[in-house]
């Protein structure tokens, strides 16, 4: 690594049009430090004036080798890496990882833990959508939205901190349940959110939904059809905004989602505006789910009693020799998972977040692969960007709701 490699047009000849090779159109870098790329995404644009002829995404600037790192740690220790993938959805990542491990070793989760998982995952979905709304609106020059959204997000992060001690990287959901039960203040704090947030969503709608500037920038921009979405593996709100009703919470329910009554919002248009409407409606539905889960929150344990895989509580270690041995074994050696491989997926705020987990019978994941939704969602950008103006491209990037930590892993 002594000198910086120069990239010439020859290396990218097969990706751009002939006019670029002749110098008729311009190749322009957008990013990796461009503020509207939400992180470190580099787009190589071939421009004819203001019109985008070709868009070549270049990713990997945030590649941290999460998969390789996780393969070198025991199942419990590897979990902290999962928060760091998609830093807008840490609880959802924990949930995906824990569910994969539970499937691999066949571990049951108590009902209270399942309901709390749903509440926390939906709160995280809400805060992720708030960040998306704030930043996507900021890209469209709606400055105040960013401030409102981050004000609301603080309330949710406060709840995360109340439960786990951490605002973002919680590692609160563990294989077999939760780290510990929620504190007594939890319910009141969530009820507070349920009371105030619907009004706040109405305020966002009043600011944006019928705003002519917003409509000008988003209607008919970045269209994707349902078939294109499926062929590109695009999932989540982007898929639903193209008219395909596919939500893993509804279609392949996990963690007790089948008990709750909620709608899966879809729109037929498939443009940036449709994605905006779908996400706003999803925020309302999240509040509905949280309300129902909180109303019938069962009492009881929040961790499985299978001490071969789940550490026994501190209170038992002092009085039970067996618990002490389990504790010692789990935190030194870890537990051995049976040989085999599983795939388990959850609906993250961005789409299908899947974990492919393979065990060779040892205490570490032999192979863990994260199927991250942003990776596939971002891959469809050359299709959406063809023929749009550069300013529209900014709106399209905003509408994908990319998290580069999720793309690059």
């Amino acid at each position: 690594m002594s000198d910086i490699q120069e990239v010439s047009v020859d290396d990218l000849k097969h990706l751009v049009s002939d006019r670029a090779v002749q110098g008729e159109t311009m190749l322009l870098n957008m990013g990796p430090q461009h503020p509207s790329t939400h992180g470190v995404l580099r787009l190589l644009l071939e421009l004819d004036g203001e019109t985008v002829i070709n868009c070549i995404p270049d990713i990997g600037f945030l590649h941290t080798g999460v998969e390789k790192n996780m393969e070198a740690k025991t199942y419990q220790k590897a979990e902290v890496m999962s928060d760091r993938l998609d830093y807008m959805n840490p609880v959802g990542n924990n949930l995906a990882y824990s569910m994969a491990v539970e499937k691999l070793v066949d571990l049951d989760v108590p009902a209270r833990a399942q309901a709390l998982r749903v509440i926390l995952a939906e709160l995280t979905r809400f805060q992720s959508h708030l960040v998306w709304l704030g930043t996507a609106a900021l890209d469209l020059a709606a400055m105040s939205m960013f401030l409102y959204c981050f004000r609301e997000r603080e309330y949710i992060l406060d709840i995360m901190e109340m439960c786990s001690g951490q605002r973002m990287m919680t590692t609160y959901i563990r294989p077999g349940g939760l780290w510990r039960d929620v504190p007594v203040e939890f319910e009141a704090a969530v009820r507070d959110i349920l009371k105030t947030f619907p009004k706040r969503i109405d305020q966002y709608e009043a600011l944006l939904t019928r705003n002519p500037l917003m409509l000008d920038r988003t209607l008919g921009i970045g269209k994707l059809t349902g078939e294109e979405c499926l062929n590109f593996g695009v999932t989540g709100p982007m898929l639903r905004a193209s008219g395909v009703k596919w939500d893993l919470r509804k279609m392949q329910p996990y963690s007790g989602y089948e008990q709750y009554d909620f709608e899966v919002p879809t729109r037929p248009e498939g443009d940036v505006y449709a994605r905006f409407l779908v996400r706003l409606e999803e925020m309302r539905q999240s509040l509905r789910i949280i309300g129902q889960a909180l109303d019938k929150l069962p009492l009881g344990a929040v961790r499985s009693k299978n001490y071969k895989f789940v550490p026994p509580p501190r209170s038992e270690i002092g009085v039970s020799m067996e618990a002490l041995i389990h504790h010692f074994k789990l935190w030194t050696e870890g537990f051995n998972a049976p040989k085999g491989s599983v795939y388990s997926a959850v609906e993250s705020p961005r789409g299908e977040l899947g974990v492919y987990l393979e065990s060779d019978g040892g205490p570490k994941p032999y192979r863990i692969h994260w199927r991250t939704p942003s990776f596939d969602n971002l891959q469809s950008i050359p299709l959406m960007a063809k023929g749009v103006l550069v300013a529209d491209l900014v709106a399209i990037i905003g509408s994908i709701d990319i998290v580069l930590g999720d793309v690059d892993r």
Partner: protein
Amino acid sequence: MPMDKNLQPIIEQLEKEFGLTAREYRGDASLVVPAEKIVPVCQRAQGLGFEMLSVLTAVDYWPEEQPRFHVIYEFTSVSKHLRLEIRVPVPGINPTVPTVSSIYRNANWRERELWDMFGIKALSHPDLRRILMPADWEGHPLRKDYPLGYEEPQFTFNYNEINLRKPYAKE
């Protein structure tokens, strides 16, 4: 967890049509497909309603050589709510699989990642460059013989200069 009963006939049909063997673990069914059959199997799977390719990755069984890798494909059927896994054994020397990026378009990046992380080449891929690692990176990080715990400083223009000032012995 038993296998989905709607998946059973599809597995049997693919088994019979292509002469494959299926295996099951905790309700996840997977078919072992030789590399040369992966393109027709993918076309058939798409025809059977598996519209989406969810995962394309690999597992390295080093130091085993025959086969050293398993390339994993996970398909999702949005219309039938099913999942199907396909495993393609690949040898350690000159590992290749045919590209499926003309059938499932998101395989394009996923096969680039496969090349980048495992050094498994997708034959006749339209744009096989590294995707996550820098273009001039040596080695394929997710292989099991690739060491963990050593980090090369990236993006430093004066690496040699810094290296000279370091106190430890150099070769």
